[in-house]
């Protein structure tokens, strides 16, 4: 899995490529922890993420908790069908705002 961090103004964009599972989740947490020193609002771009397991989802939730404690938020963009099923069965969609467009997700922080 590849995790890429970019910054768009005050918004951090974390791109996930490949599988987010128990093996790769620490990498996401490490990237997030580093980025959280610079920004508090994030968009998780999951356009290239084709699989997520419960540990991966747990890591995203841990990042969200950490962001909320710092007064920020994490929004999800371009969630693919298979990871969406995991969000559905774990009811994670009740705590995340999910956008199908990256720009709309970024702009939503301005609303």
């Amino acid at each position, binding site marked *: 899995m590849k995790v890429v961090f970019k910054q768009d103004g005050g918004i951090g964009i974390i791109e996930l490529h490949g599988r987010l599972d128990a093996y790769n989740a620490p990498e996401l947490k490490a990237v997030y922890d580093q980025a959280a020193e610079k920004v508090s609002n994030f968009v998780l771009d999951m356009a290239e993420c084709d699989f997520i397991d*419960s540990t991966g989802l747990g890591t995203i939730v841990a990042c969200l908790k950490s962001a909320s404690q710092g007064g920020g938020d994490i929004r999800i963009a371009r969630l693919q069908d298979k990871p*969406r099923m995991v969000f559905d069965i774990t009811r994670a969609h009740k705590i995340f705002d999910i956008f199908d467009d990256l720009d709309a997700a970024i702009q939503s922080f301005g609303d």
Partner: protein
Amino acid sequence: MRGLIYAGSGGLGWLKRYFADTDPYLLKIVNKPLLEYFLDLASILKVTELRVVSDHSTRSMEEIFGDGSRWGVKLSYALAKPGDSLKNVYLKNMSFCKDQDMLLFNGFCFVNYDRRELEGIVKSKQSFCLGDEQKRVICLKSGCSLSETASKPQEQVPGLSVSEINSVMDYYRLSMSILKHWNKFYVLPGYSNQKDTFLGLNLIYPNSSELVPPIMIGDNCSFNKFTIIGPNSIIGDNVIVDENTIVKDSIILDDTFIGAELDIDSKIVCKNHLIDGKTGDMIVVHDKILVSQVERGLVVSYFNYMIQKALAVVFLLIQLPFWLLFFITFSLILRKHRSSWLINKGFKTIDYLGPHRLNQSLWGRFMLRLSLDKFCLLWHVLRGKLILVGNSLMPNSAAYRKLVLDLPVYTPGVFSLAETVEITSTDELVFYELEYVHNVSTRFNLKIVVRCLLRRLIKGYRG
């Protein structure tokens, strides 16, 4: 044109009370899920791509509607946060909605349409909004603002109107009106060789039984002798009506058994819930002879079923000497209490010494490696209470009872897919249960048995 259906669950508490295990948007109106009426209308209005956004779950909708090819539309699904407004949902699906003529359905309502007058809507360049803030249909032409259009709801659009369904009485009235007066306006399921009569597949009824139109009967129904069904009756799929019973002006929902010598008039019957269609009064019937749920289980072939029984006999014979040697002495000396386990959705239980109790001692853990805890369960396979491979057997506790109700089918087995993997939460358990239900086959079952036995032998029990 594209379409977006926002299946929000706000304000639908009353539906949960009456039809607890049905997704509100899959509630059948004249034997057809509400969502399907939206799809039909979208298809008539030449919508090519449609997205269903739900704030609860899209799982059961996906199972029924799939990719939408049956309706000639490309169907996709998305999730929203509970409480999201239509505007929020629109923004969250901006990539889908951008620069398109959009047809938006919002909330739990019924859209009445007359297809002869809909041509004008397709050709018109005007946006419109019908209905109130919570329940409405909006046709948004490209370049128009959603906020502006939504703020000016129209009184009338030719060929289109919105009916609110705010109570079980509204639901009853609407269903009856469609069956009696508007059945020609919609594509209703079943074949019809007589006016106002719609019959499903595999209907069994004797000569002494009478069907009186208007009537709608679903698939796999069976009516016993001297029954009178109708007039004005809607019978769902998998319904059994026992002898000398009269059903009129009533709605019987899927998977329901109606007992003998009853007079069902102006009622809605949903499994063991008996609802008065005119007042909304409801009673839950505990006497299974009157009305009850027809149990649904995993669909396994006869071949699969016989293989499972044969394997159960083989395992019993192999385990018998070990069980006599270790297990009997263990239960006599340590006197561990048996616990109760759920074997169907009706919360029937069996008692046996479960693995979590055995796991508390070294001796017990050794027996778990040999899968001796399953010996008692194998007897239940021969008695037809369990199957060899099925859903995970769940303990009889409030949390698991809720989980069992959430599953589309619950047919527990001695071995299960969930046992072959490491599970840390109930959400994961649900995931594997659903995966099993979707992939069940003889080969898959055999694989599960082998993996369960090997995993136990090598790694021991991991509860």
